[in-house]
């Protein structure tokens, strides 16, 4: 049952990932990208990590995809035109893939049998974030605040003197 579900979700995700990479129309590619994120969220659901799956949908479909779509709309004049497939991107993708495979194969923790995963509740996620990993969380918060202030300064209008 799980294998079948995995195969179905994998086909779904890869189809939309390929569509996002190869679709000549920019906006369709961006929307396929958003659908691909839903496939990835489905993987998390399959693994029993509801919280991560929901956050995946929330952040990537609700925020990042909207951001991408807006970026395309506000910066490009040739949105409606067809774009040719760029082989340079394939090279970059293969380089990243090889790098990831190399890193995964080098880690020692995979060789050990995985511990039996318990159902992760939201409470545990909260405790992990606020107790064990509170410093990384705060650092990310400061970084995001800095980015927000930077963005505000960039778009601030000069007061006419």
């Amino acid at each position, binding site marked *: 049952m799980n294998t079948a579900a995995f195969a179905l979700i994998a086909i779904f995700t890869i189809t939309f990932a390929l569509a996002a990479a190869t679709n000549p129309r920019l906006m369709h590619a961006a*929307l396929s990208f*958003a659908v691909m994120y839903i496939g990835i969220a489905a993987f998390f659901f399959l693994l029993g990590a509801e919280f991560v799956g929901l956050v995946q949908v929330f952040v990537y*479909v*609700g925020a990042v995809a*909207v951001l991408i779509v807006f970026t395309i709309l506000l910066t490009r004049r040739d949105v409606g035109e067809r774009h040719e497939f760029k082989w340079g991107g394939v090279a970059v993708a293969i380089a990243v893939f090889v790098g990831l495979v190399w890193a995964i194969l080098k880690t020692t923790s995979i060789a050990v049998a995985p511990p039996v995963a318990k159902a992760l509740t939201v409470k545990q996620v909260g405790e992990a974030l606020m107790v064990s990993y509170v410093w990384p969380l705060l650092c990310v918060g400061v970084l995001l605040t800095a980015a927000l202030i930077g963005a505000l300064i960039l778009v601030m209008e000069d007061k006419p003197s």
Partner: protein
Amino acid sequence: MRVSVEAVDQVFLHLKQWLLSFLVGHVPDWVVQVASSLLNIGTVLGVFLTLFALISVLERKILGRMQNRYGPNRVGPCGLFQPVADGIKMLIKEDIVPDRADKVVHFLAPILIAAAAILALGVIPYGRNMTPFVIDGGILFFFAVGSTTELAVFMAGWGSNNKFSLLGAMRAIAQMISYELPLIITVLPVVMVVGSLNPDKIVFAQKYYYFGFLPHWFVLTPWGATAFILFFVSGLVESNRTPFDVPEGESEIVAGHMTEYSGFKYATFFMAEYLGMFAVSGLAVTLFLGGWHAPLPWLRFIPSFVWFFAKLSVLLFVFIWIRGTLPRIRVDQMMNLAWKFMLPMAFTCLVSAAVWYYNGRRVAGWLWSFAIIAVVYVILSLFLDTRRKFAPRTYRFAE
């Protein structure tokens, strides 16, 4: 034969088990599970589509009453069959797709928007043991699904290839993103106090009564009342209702992202808007108004789902009442309200709820949390200087 209160309360649950009992033993277990889910989905769809039909005619009747006219009164008794006539009209209308439209995106947008609204309805507890889709992070699910609406609105605006559509979609997304922040932050104090994202647990946390008659609803605490008002206003914006219906302001941009939709696709948008309104009201009932609990302990003999839908109807009436009362506000006023007032107040609710919680839910905590909210409110209203905000608008033009 005397029917117990318990049996009436659980009547739908027993009905479902009775229907499923025909299947058990004859088919594999997973078929029973699928059938159970399908029954849940069918019930949610049936109930809310009926409610949609009912509320669309009631809204016109109530608005008519408020504006000193009759409203629909021709089809059926008191015009009650008006939705049937409307439905038939929408179905037999020609479906026009603009020639230069992005056909696929144009077609998918209404489907996606309706799907998101229906999914959000799935996690709300409608009565004792009556949550269609039980999930540990139910509140998060609600907002995760709701956040995909923005993409659907964009698809509608972009796919139509029309400047009114695109402008309307831009406005809609801008206001939805701005008000999603206060909407979610006002939910946080409830989640924090209950310690769970599960809607059922949030309802259970509100089941006791102070002094034997005052319910434990969160709306009766200072932070809860503030959060409820902020949540309700954000809900008005998220469902594009007056006075925040700027994205479809007909005097400015025709019908916003729905300009190029006709016939049943337009009806789908309309339906999604109402279903979104039901979902937000349902969540407000769950979070702040005690869910399906009775307001007084001696009224507990009335079934839980009756209480839920009674509270839902009150909120829906307020939605309609506001529509009949307030004019549409400007985009800049709306953004000012979101970022300069709603957001700081939402954060104040969070602090105030923490103070209330650590004072052990006693009178002292109640007063302290009230004081915090009052001080921030006064400071904000002095600081924002509303007199200047309502002066004539200064126009800026691109050089």
